[in-house]
């Protein structure tokens, strides 16, 4: 079974339920089939490697990519392409720290402790508006009509994209996101061209917006990023572009899946859905359990040891490609009791869903709030919701895994 298991994980036919494959994978905690990547699948190993300063996130340190089916994939929310300098996701300290620190200044504590909380009203407004406009309750595609537009609109507000430009922004974002999720039937050259054009247009648009915000600063992230603070705390325009692109891609590709996986899981667990309807505060532990049970980022394919390292007695040579399979670590029975059980009431829930260490999810506070609000509002307002198709059709992408559509039906929509 171990033979070809990576291929099986990437194989679309296993997309709806990769967890039995991960269970198989954990039998060989450091899996290597001779040419491909070294695959780490148990909780404690992943957890310590995420804090290991001998591992680099910078692709320049990668020397052995032969046999790694994800070696050229942008994975984990990258997708900025060679036209831009790499985002901090793909950099090591000190560059990583500098860019992440500057990006954090207008986003979170200590400098902007209220930015996310201050967006509660906005978030609520967007969620309500989308639910109001769901249309025929007999047939709703929760991805296209809700889970997709929600985070993109949110990112627009956060960055400071003017309302009237939001539709254009959405369309570029859709195209770029589609490029991250290759359709095996489409013409690859054509897809590359379309994605590249969208990137260029988005880049030009953002550059114009940044220019405008330098002149007329507003209370938004782009203005503050453009302004810079202190002597070494200024981003070049190119850095700013790659950072905004990262926020856009990573900030919505993942949240879409978190919300969709969440609704799918709730519809499969009607008792929990009923409980959430009665107790909206259940959304907080529920989202944490979701991040463990169905994490939007299944694996991190871009870590490389700077030196030969030993994990569980296996030497992983310098420059090798490594995969850290977060979703597998999250179902490791050595770490979690009944790991395959969805249990939002569990007390011990230190999951790997948002990573850990210096690259732990930058947008986590926003993603959590988005998912909490979205799921509790959907639970409250949809009357007797049911799945039309189970499992739903999944997206191609094995790394950023989630349903492409989630068709549901319900008896009505409460005010």
């Amino acid at each position, binding site marked *: 079974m171990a033979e070809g298991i990576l291929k099986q994980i990437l194989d679309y036919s296993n997309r709806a339920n990769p967890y039995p494959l991960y269970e198989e994978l954990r039998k060989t905690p450091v899996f290597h089939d001779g040419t491909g990547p070294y695959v780490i699948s148990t909780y404690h190993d992943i957890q310590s490697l995420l804090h290991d*300063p001998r591992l680099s996130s910078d692709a320049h340190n990668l020397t052995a990519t032969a046999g790694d089916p994800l070696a050229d994939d942008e994975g984990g929310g990258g997708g900025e392409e060679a036209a831009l300098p790499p985002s901090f996701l793909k950099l*090591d300290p000190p560059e990583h720290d500098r860019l992440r620190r500057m990006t954090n200044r207008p986003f979170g504590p200590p400098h902007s402790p209220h930015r996310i909380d201050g967006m509660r009203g906005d978030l609520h407004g967007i969620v309500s508006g989308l639910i109001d406009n769901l249309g025929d309750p007999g047939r709703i595609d929760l991805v296209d009509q809700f889970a997709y537009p929600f985070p993109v609109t949110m990112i627009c507000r956060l960055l400071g994209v003017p309302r009237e430009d939001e539709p254009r922004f959405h369309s570029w974002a859709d195209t770029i996101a589609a490029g991250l999720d290759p359709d095996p039937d489409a013409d690859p050259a054509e897809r590359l061209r379309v994605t590249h054009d969208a990137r260029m247009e988005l880049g030009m648009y953002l550059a114009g917006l940044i220019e405008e915000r330098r002149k007329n600063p507003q209370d938004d992230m782009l203005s503050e990023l453009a302004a810079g603070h202190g002597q070494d705390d200024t981003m070049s325009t190119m850095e700013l572009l790659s950072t905004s692109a990262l926020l856009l891609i990573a900030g919505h590709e993942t949240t879409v899946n978190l919300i969709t996986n969440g609704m799918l899981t709730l519809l499969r667990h009607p008792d929990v859905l009923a409980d959430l309807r009665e107790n909206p505060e259940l959304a907080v532990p529920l989202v944490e359990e979701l991040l463990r049970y169905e994490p939007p980022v299944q694996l991190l394919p871009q870590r490389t040891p700077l*030196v030969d390292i030993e994990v569980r007695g296996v030497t992983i040579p310098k420059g090798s490609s490594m995969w850290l399979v977060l979703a597998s670590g999250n179902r490791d029975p050595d770490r979690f009791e009944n790991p395959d059980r969805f249990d939002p009431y569990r007390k011990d829930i230190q999951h790997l869903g948002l990573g850990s260490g210096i690259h732990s999810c930058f947008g986590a506070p926003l993603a959590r709030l988005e998912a909490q609000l979205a799921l509790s509002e959907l639970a409250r307002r949809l009357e007797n919701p049911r799945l039309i198709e189970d499992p739903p059709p999944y997206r191609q992408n094995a790394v950023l895994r989630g349903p492409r559509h989630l068709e549901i039906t319900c008896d009505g929509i409460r005010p």
Partner: protein
Amino acid sequence: MPDGSLDRLKREGRIVVVGASLAGLRAAETLRDKGFEGTLTMIGDEPYEPYDRPPLSKQVLLGKATAEHTALPRRREIDAEWRLGVPASGLDMAARRVKLADGDEVPYDRLMIATGVRARPWPNEAEAELDGVFVLRTRDDGAGLARRLDAGPKRVLVIGAGFTGSEIASACRERGLEVTVAERGDAPLVGALGGVIGAVAAEMHRENGVDLRTGVMVTRLEGGATGRVRAAHFSDGTTLECDVVVVSLGAQRNTEWLAGSGLGAGPRGIACDAGCRAFDVRGIVTDDVFVAGDVARSPHPLFGYQFLSLEHWGNAVAQAETAAHNMLSESSDRRPHIWVPAFWSSQFGVNIKSVGVPSMGTEIMITQGSRAERRFTGVYGYQGRVIGAVTFDNCRWLQFYEQQIEATAPFPPPFPTVDRRADGQRPIPADFPDPSVPTHGPTITLSGYSPADRRMTFTPAGH
């Protein structure tokens, strides 16, 4: 006791916890978690329910929280009889009774001592009594000092630049107050982290506008006509006008109440075995007296079985849990307390964390980041192995170094890491002060003899 007496203890026994702070509370919660159904008595000398201390030197001094609102969150109901505001005054080990200052006596089957430490007072009593002279340890201390800082003093003098003193100075500067820090050693934090890191801390003080004076002692505090402090005199002959003085000279262990009890308690704390059972004065371990938290002193296998006494928040929690577990366990089920020391501080906008026992280190290597940027990881070496690590704004790497310490990994680390800079190419002497020269009380006190190495590596610092 495989005769059912343990079951009886769990069902109807009497457990007394002396010390109603972090360690005491967590011990009580663990006892109930483990199924203890008997009588539980919590004795505390302060009139308050258990509260958290770290905010007292941080948010409270900044006016971002009040000292009254630092109650510790409860993990569960503990259904205890609370005797608050009454200190324990004595212990009769033979009769198994704790004596209280109000004359009452409380009998026990098992005793947990978690009386912690108190702030070391200014040695001159009359000067310590002056209005405007503070220490910072309790909730009342925190509230009183915060009120005085609210009033906008002209100049605050902090005596002692350990972690607490540095945090106080940082809070004062953040409030825009003028502050002088007087430190007997050569740099702030030097006792805990050595001179290499102390130099970084000194820069932090000065760049943030602290009037830092090192290598000096305060010889006298002078009061005005109204009994209010107005000036301090230094060993270098200078005088400083100041209207608030915070004495931050480390801590003293609360063991006086045990004098004459026959328990192995003294100024260095209460010695216990790795399972938290206290020793009596003959060096024989007791079966029914357990200790945890700042007041305990226990041998650590990872650090040559030296008796470590740790004033660390996390240690108080972990040791209390272990002690409570062992209290209700057969000897074969007892667990050792082998927590790796870990500590954090927040000052001048920088997050400082350490693991292991840096003060045992003779060398340090800056393995990541740079001291000049004040974002770095420093690894301490002792006899060719990694013994401790410290991070300034770099704590997400700390877990790795903790594992290196646990694995007794070689020092200097033989591998490259991300963010290795020019000054991290080789180790340098960590530059700890000569332990025979007193400084203020350090954060970690190492003492005692190890079975493997009969030399005492450090003598505890005193004022």
